[in-house]
């Protein structure tokens, strides 16, 4: 197995194919165009199908059709396009359609810009579309990690019959890093007896009905109870977090994705100055690794936590809920696409230390 220098978007697309994804529907938007472009060339080589849809709205509904038909299917977009997909994501959650949605976040609100940002945290983690539902949200912080998470994303989508979101940002999509891609020419996919693959009225294959409408209150109650029970299992089993240098730290940084890499550099900088700082990096944003965040921040040695994000206090809310008032949680971040530097983060910690 060798390392290959790859652009994030292309590595993600190839990793999806290696995970058994054979259908991709999407609409161009910067900074994720390399995903559909790569898929358009690759899918025919593996007997799959790439289709450029007329809109993100159509793309997510094609995902509904293909996922409901039993296929491993993916769509990708960036912030404004992800907004358009929300109706469909809510539909897929209710109709219990496994699918993977990649969001290479860019600056917002509105058309914003085309640089990296983390402004879609609430949208991804707190629902985004209407109604009570969750999507599992992975927030990788390197291209290698994104690639490693892809098979997991598809497996989790299939196991729980749920949409899964890869919440990355324009930086991860556009930069190049050496990656190791595991080849998997014949991925073994789970059976999907519920899928629309054809129907045998004489009993062998029951009729598939893929639906998000439950007009009788009692019927909708059965669905939401089933989803709720599933979400509880996901919360028990699927949380992922990285703890970096947290033991006996004086301060705890909390960050995800690209910003977490900056924070790691800050941890090292501060370490050189004799200040022990740790980093808690949620890898799943939903389910949120609250216990790990709490335990790291609530240690006796810790004076305070600092949430660093490229958004205006979104991750902050979940960190504060997790820490539950046991330690002060400060905030460093802003909307848009200005990436904080390690020096700025270190400086802020030094300031907190003097306070």
């Amino acid at each position, binding site marked *: 197995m060798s390392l290959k220098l790859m652009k994030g978007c292309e590595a993600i697309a190839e990793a999806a194919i290696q995970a058994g994804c054979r259908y991709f529907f999407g609409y161009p938007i910067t900074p994720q165009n390399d995903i559909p472009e790569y898929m358009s060339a690759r899918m025919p080589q593996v007997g799959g199908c790439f289709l450029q849809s007329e809109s993100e*709205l159509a793309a997510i509904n094609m995902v509904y059709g293909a996922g*409901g038909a039993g296929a491993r299917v993916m769509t990708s977009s960036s912030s404004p396009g992800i907004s358009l997909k929300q109706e469909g994501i809510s539909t897929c959650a209710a109709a219990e359609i496994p699918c993977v949605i990649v969001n290479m976040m860019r600056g917002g609100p509105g058309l914003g810009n085309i640089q990296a940002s983390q402004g879609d945290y609430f949208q991804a983690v707190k629902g985004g579309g209407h109604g009570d539902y969750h999507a599992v949200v992975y927030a990788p912080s390197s291209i290698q990690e994104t690639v490693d998470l892809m098979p997991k994303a598809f497996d989790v989508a299939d196991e729980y019959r749920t949409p899964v979101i890869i919440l990355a940002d324009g930086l991860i999509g556009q930069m190049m890093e050496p990656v190791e891609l595991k080849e998997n020419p014949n991925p073994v996919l789970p059976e999907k007896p519920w899928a629309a693959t054809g129907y*045998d009225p004489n009993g062998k294959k029951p009729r598939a009905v893929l639906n998000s409408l439950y007009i009788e209150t009692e019927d909708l109650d059965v669905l939401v109870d089933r989803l709720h029970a599933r979400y509880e299992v996901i919360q028990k089993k699927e949380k992922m977090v990285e703890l970096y240098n947290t033991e006996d730290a004086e301060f705890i940084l909390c960050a995800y994705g690209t910003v977490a890499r900056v924070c790691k550099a800050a941890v090292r900088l501060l370490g050189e100055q004799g200040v022990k700082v740790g980093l808690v990096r949620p890898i799943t944003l939903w389910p949120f690794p609250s216990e790990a965040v709490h335990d790291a921040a609530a240690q006796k040695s810790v004076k305070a936590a600092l949430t660093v994000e490229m958004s205006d206090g979104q991750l902050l809310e979940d960190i504060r809920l997790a820490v539950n008032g046991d330690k002060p949680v400060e905030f460093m971040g802003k909307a848009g696409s200005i990436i904080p530097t390690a020096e700025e983060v270190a400086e802020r910690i030094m300031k907190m230390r003097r306070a």
Partner: protein
Amino acid sequence: MATIFKRTSVLTDVPFHYCPGCGHGIVHRMVAEVIEELGIRNKTAGVAPVGCAVFAYNYFDVDMYEAAHGRAPAVATGYKRVHPENIVFTYQGDGDLASIGTAEIVQAAHRGEKITTIFINNAIYGMTGGQMAPTTLVGQKTTTSPLGRSKEHCGEPIRMAEMLATINGAAYIERTALNSTANIIRTKAAIKKAFETQIAGKGFSMVEVLSPCPTNWGKSPAESMDWIAENMIPYYPLGVMKEA
């Protein structure tokens, strides 16, 4: 005794919820009969719309999806790309297809998507209580055009069959009506032709059916049939618009 008519097995036993005199039930039966006659039941999937036919997944005894409002052609596309050897149809009203879902239907035709669409044009939004549709006739009173649709205010009704027939990917487009026995028989033949077009892999096919909504037109079932003949057919001419 010879059986001269029996219920098609491609409809479930669930009673239709449609109003007396509604066109949806007639078209459901004919679509189901065609699926049975063509012997494609085991490999057919249907996509129900948002509109009065929203519960179509309870009635057609084949694999079924329920799509969000207007999105049925995109859902059918996803299905068809995964199972190109199977047959898929969408069943849509005029709010679903000619208003909120225009992009999806035009682009499905434009791609030459090998799907079949059954389009129920009743010149009104049935399910939400009789609001104006893009197909509402000029002068027609609805709950959101209480004085009658005004051409100056919101244009003239859209002719979807003619519009889609201009698209190369559309292989078969016909408009029919339910106002007489002869026209009902023609509608069934058109539905069959549309499915055969898909089976032959020729491209997109659609049958637009002029269909009564007595409840929201404020007419009896019989008056509604006359209203189709007198008011709808002159504006929406019947016939094959495209046959590739």
